[in-house]
Structure formats: structure tokens, C-alpha cells
């Protein structure tokens, strides 16, 4: 079901390319948490946590953890220069008022029009939406990083999400182990392809029809 570390890092590396100097970025758990490792030095990026940190740094070295300095998942982090603390209301105010330049999230399903389902599997897992709806609906750019297919081999990029939605028409980009899609008003556009795959393979594994970018790029990393 899961992807290997190498592939997960490739996805994270591609997502990192979207991040520009000075941006405020919120990362979900899983693959998104690998993104900071792939930012070139020289880019200053501020990472946002829903519990009230603007300017979150990497994990501390073992033994240096501070139980009062943790990310929204409850794991120890550090601070960047220029960081600040706020309460959760303000942290979500930043989200709702569009101050988050990019959020990078996992997903269960994404539709061709950018609908996102990532918070619930009815009858199975009902964990609550947490901050997923706020982020998906309000971040300036929502990037989904996920396996291309679920454990049954079915495309997670779907015509219509069958799982309950997190937010409608919110996803701008989908990055999987096979390819990168942009969500455009005309539908999905294949913009990048990982070098082990062909466009035909991707068509077979993707439930939704997609266009191909004129500047289609092959990712060799």
C-alpha cells in the first residue's frame, strides 16, 4: 500500500519545486513532511502549523526535544529565525484569509475538477476533519501528493469523488509517483512524467481523461 522511501522523496522533491522564496507553507503529515528536505538553500520559506507556529523548523536532534514545541501532529519541531507563536484562532485566521501560499496534503481521492476527499472513509474511519477543510478551501494553492492508485489498484484520480468531500474545486496540482497534473478550467493537464513511466501507462492507470502540456517535462530524479 505504501510507497518506498525513494519514491516518496521523489514526490516530495517535485512538490518542493513549487515553493518560492518567502512563501508561507503548511504541510500535512506523511509525504508532505519530507518536502523541507528538498528545498534549495537560499530559499527562505516559512512553515505554518495549525496549533500556532509561524516559522516551524526541522525536527530537533534526539534528546533536544521540547514537549511544548511540537507541530500540529504532536511531534517535536524547532523554530526558524523570524518565527512567532499565536493561538489556534489566529493560526486558522491566517489560513482563512488566504495567507497560506501553498498547502501540501495527502488525499484519498481527487476529481478531475479538483474536488478533494481526504478526511473520512464512512463506516471505517471517522477521525473528524481537523483542519483539513479550512486548509483545502482557503490555501492559495493546494497540492495533493499521493499514490496514483489505491491498494486495489484503482485510480485515486477520479471522475467524481465517491468519498465525502473535504472541499470542492480546491486542488490545483496533483503529484503521484507516476506524474504531475495541473487542474485547469479545461480539466487535468499532464505537466510532468516520472521517467519510469509512459503517457500510455498513465492513461491506463488514471480514471480521468487528461490533456498533455505542450511543455511536458520528464522528471529524471
Amino acid at each position, binding site marked *: 500500500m505504501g510507497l518506498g522511501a525513494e519514491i516518496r522523496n521523489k514526490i516530495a522533491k517535485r512538490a518542493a519545486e513549487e515553493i518560492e522564496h518567502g512563501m508561507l507553507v503548511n504541510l500535512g503529515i506523511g509525504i508532505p513532511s519530507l518536502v523541507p528536505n528538498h528545498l534549495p538553500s537560499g530559499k527562505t520559506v516559512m512553515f505554518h*502549523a*495549525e*496549533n*500556532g*507556529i509561524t516559522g516551524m523548523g526541522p525536527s530537533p536532534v534526539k534528546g533536544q*526535544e*521540547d*514537549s*511544548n*514545541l*511540537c*507541530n*500540529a*501532529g*504532536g*511531534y*517535536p519541531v524547532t523554530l526558524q529565525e523570524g518565527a512567532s*507563536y*499565536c*493561538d*489556534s*484562532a489566529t*493560526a*486558522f*485566521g491566517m*489560513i*482563512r484569509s488566504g495567507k497560506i501560499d501553498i498547502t501540501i496534503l495527502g488525499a484519498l481521492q481527487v476529481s478531475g475538477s479538483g474536488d478533494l476527499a481526504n478526511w*473520512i472513509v464512512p463506516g471505517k*474511519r*471517522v*477521525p*473528524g*476533519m*481537523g*483542519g*483539513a*477543510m*479550512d486548509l483545502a*478551501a*482557503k490555501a492559495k494553492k493546494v497540492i495533493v501528493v499521493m499514490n496514483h492508485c489505491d491498494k486495489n489498484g484503482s485510480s485515486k484520480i477520479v471522475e467524481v469523488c465517491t468519498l*465525502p*468531500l*473535504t*472541499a*470542492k474545486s480546491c486542488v490545483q496540482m496533483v503529484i503521484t509517483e507516476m506524474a504531475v497534473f495541473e487542474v485547469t478550467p479545461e480539466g487535468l493537464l499532464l505537466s510532468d512524467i516520472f521517467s519510469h513511466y509512459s503517457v500510455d501507462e498513465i492513461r491506463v492507470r488514471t480514471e480521468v481523461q487528461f490533456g498533455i502540456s505542450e511543455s511536458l517535462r520528464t522528471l529524471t530524479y
Partner: protein
Amino acid sequence: MLANTFQKITEIDYIKRFFKDGMTIMYGGFGGIGTPPGLVDAIIESKIKELTLIGNDTGFPDIGIGKIVTSKQVKRLIVSHIGSNPNAGKFMTNGELEIEFSPQGTLAERIRAGGMGLGGILTDVGADVEVVRRNKQTCEVDGKTFLIETALTADVSIVHAEKADPYGNLIFSKSARNTNPLVAMAGKITIAEAEEIVPLGELDPEGIITPGVFVDYIIPSKGVNWKWVWEQK
């Protein structure tokens, strides 16, 4: 000897008189961080039941407010997620526990609104999502549909502070601030568990996060008595 000028500094035993069956308790904390450990234990020891709890999440089974969920004292929860506490999910599934989920930012604002004496707030987060919209009132502002999300208050609010002074002025530690300043404002009675109680005038007036007027009682903390997930092997 610290002057107890406002008679707010007290002990856990005194506080227990406020704990009653069926009451609503609001708690600070985010994944257990910033949840007052001594007050959680006092609630468990008091054996009160049929509680309504309001807070960000349900911590972990043995961490934070999760301990009160685990001890089956809770009838109803208003939270944004329960993902880290399987007991909450289990009790919900078997019908022992009723849960109202609110998007995290909406929940934070509902708590703040309660504390600030507002009736509620307007937000469009979740307005097109059935589980959030439910049968809530809506209104149109500039042609856009907003949910009317109502304010939340509690009989008792419990928070965990880094330092308190005798007026109840509070500062928090790093990301343990999270929902604590919001929750501190929204209790009819607010009890702060403080790692340190300092003399009046010692906290920088510019740096005080929760003005003491929102705090009714202060108890000294013995610190966190659970093991964090990342400390467990």
C-alpha cells in the same frame, strides 16, 4: 510567601467542588500539549460523569483529555478530530459517545466568540459540505453564503499555563499556547493550572497572553505525568 491578593490561588481539593455530573467542560490543548495534567486527574478522581467536553481534539488514550474519554466519563464531545484516540472512535461507534465535529478553525473561533461575548461568527468553511452544514442557519453577505456558527461556552474551562501571577495573568510555553488563551476566556469558571506562580508585577504587561480577568482560580501544577508518543519506544 506569595501574596494571594485576589484569593485566586488555591489547591486542587478546593477546585473539586466545581465538578458536577452532566456539566460542560472546555479544555485547552492540541494533541495533549497544553492540556492541564493535574486538572485532568482531578476530574477523573472526582468520578463525575455524563460530561460534555469541548476542545480541539481528544488527545491520545493515555495523554491529555484523552484520559477522561478513556475513563468513560464523557457523554458528548465537540471537537475537530479524534484521530489520535481510538477509544473515542470506539465509543462513538458503539453509541456510548455522541460527537459533534467542527472544522478546527471554526471550532477555535466558536470558542473565542463564547469568550468574547459574541453570539457566533460567519464562515464559509464547510458551507458546501453536508457534515458541517447540517441544519445550521446561513446568511448571505455580498452574495456569498456563510454558515452561522454559534458561540461555545462552558461551565468550567481548564487551561495549562507556563506562568501565572496572583491576578490570573497567564503566559504559555511555545506551541502549548494553542487553544489555551481561547478556552481561558470561554469558561463561566476558568481554572488555570500553572507550572509557576510569580508575584504580581513580575510578568511583563506587554507579554501577558491571557489577562487575569478571565481567570477565576489558579492551581500549582506538578507537571505532565504522561509519556508523549514520541518518547514511547
